[in-house]
Each structure stands twice: as structure tokens, then as C-alpha cells.
């Protein structure tokens, strides 16, 4: 973030701004990563690897729609389980060696 660095002394607003931007950037990156994973998973589940046709078949289209819906359901479920465990999650992070 070169323009931030250029901006001499870091005032209160500037560091707030930097924090906002950093968060927006991270959010964008996370969205991109999620979309990538989702696409990969649903491609594997729904697209036949024989490629006799360049269009999505009816079956492939419907499968894709359902796959996306289920992916979000599973994501929400896992997210809830992890936050319910709160500490267990911290434990999982603590199982991470050498902090």
C-alpha cells in the first residue's frame, strides 16, 4: 500500500483508513478463494470428464445449482459447529505446534 506509506505522519484517520482497506482487501481475497474452491468442488461433482459436448447438459446444470446450495449449507454447518466449540477451535489452533 505505497500511497499510505507516502502519506507522511500517520494520523488517526489514516490508520483507520488503512485498517478499512486492509479488511476490504482481505474480504475480496477470501471471496475469490471461496469461489475458486466452490467451482472446483462442483466441477468434480457435476461435470463428466469426457467432454463430448461444449455446452452444459441439463443434468450438469441442475447438478451445479444444487451443488452450490449444498456447499453453502455445509459451510454454514461447519462454521456453526466450529464457533459453538469456541474453545475446541482454539484447541485446534493450539494443537498447532509451537506457539
Amino acid at each position, binding site marked *: *500500500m505505497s*500511497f499510505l506509506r507516502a502519506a507522511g505522519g500517520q494520523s488517526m484517520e489514516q490508520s483507520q*483508513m488503512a485498517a*478499512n*482497506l486492509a479488511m*476490504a*482487501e482481505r*474480504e*475480496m*481475497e477470501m*471471496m*475469490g478463494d471461496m*469461489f*475458486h474452491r*466452490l*467451482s*472446483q468442488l*462442483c*466441477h468434480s461433482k*457435476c*461435470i463428466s*470428464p469426457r*467432454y*463430448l*459436448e*461444449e*455446452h*452444459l447438459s441439463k443434468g*450438469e*446444470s441442475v447438478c*451445479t*445449482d444444487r451443488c*452450490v*446450495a449444498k456447499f*453453502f449449507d455445509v459451510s454454514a454447518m461447519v462454521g456453526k459447529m466450529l464457533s459453538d466449540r469456541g474453545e475446541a477451535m482454539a484447541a485446534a489452533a493450539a494443537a498447532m505446534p509451537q506457539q
Partner: protein
Amino acid sequence: MDFSHLSQQEQAHLQMVVEQNQIKESMRIYNTIVDRCFTDCIKDMTSSALSPKENTCVKNCVNKFLKHSERVGQRFTESQVLMQQKQMEEGMAS
């Protein structure tokens, strides 16, 4: 994502970041397509040239990949919108 809470200067900077992100995203899509279509279509190593069959397979694979991504993108966006509405309603209710 809603960025209306950002200042004008922040939005200008974000614009630049978004563009860099798109380049990176395009590279990722390109690499993902090559990996996927190479893996699925190239089976015969008795020649170093692509056979007509492999050629057709790669073409279909690329087109199908893009159509699939587009469809996933539509559903993805719809889900995001739904989730945001739900969050807003919950915000109102409380």
C-alpha cells in the same frame, strides 16, 4: 460486499487493488483450466502432437469450464444477496 462506508480516497485505492486482483484471478482461472483439461483430455502419450480427438476434447473442456464457472457465479451471487438480506432483516428485528 458493500464499500459505501469507505472514503473517496479509499475507494480509489481499492479500485487499483481490485484491478490487480482481477489479473491474479485471471491467471488462476487460466492455470486451473489448463490443469483440468490437460489432466482429463491428454491420455495418449504415443505421440508428441495433440490428436484430433484430444484437440476436440480440450476445446469442449475449456468451453464447458467457462459455462460452469458462469453458472456457479450466478448461484454464488444470488446466495450472497440472500444472506445479506437475511442479515439486514435480523438487524432490523433486533
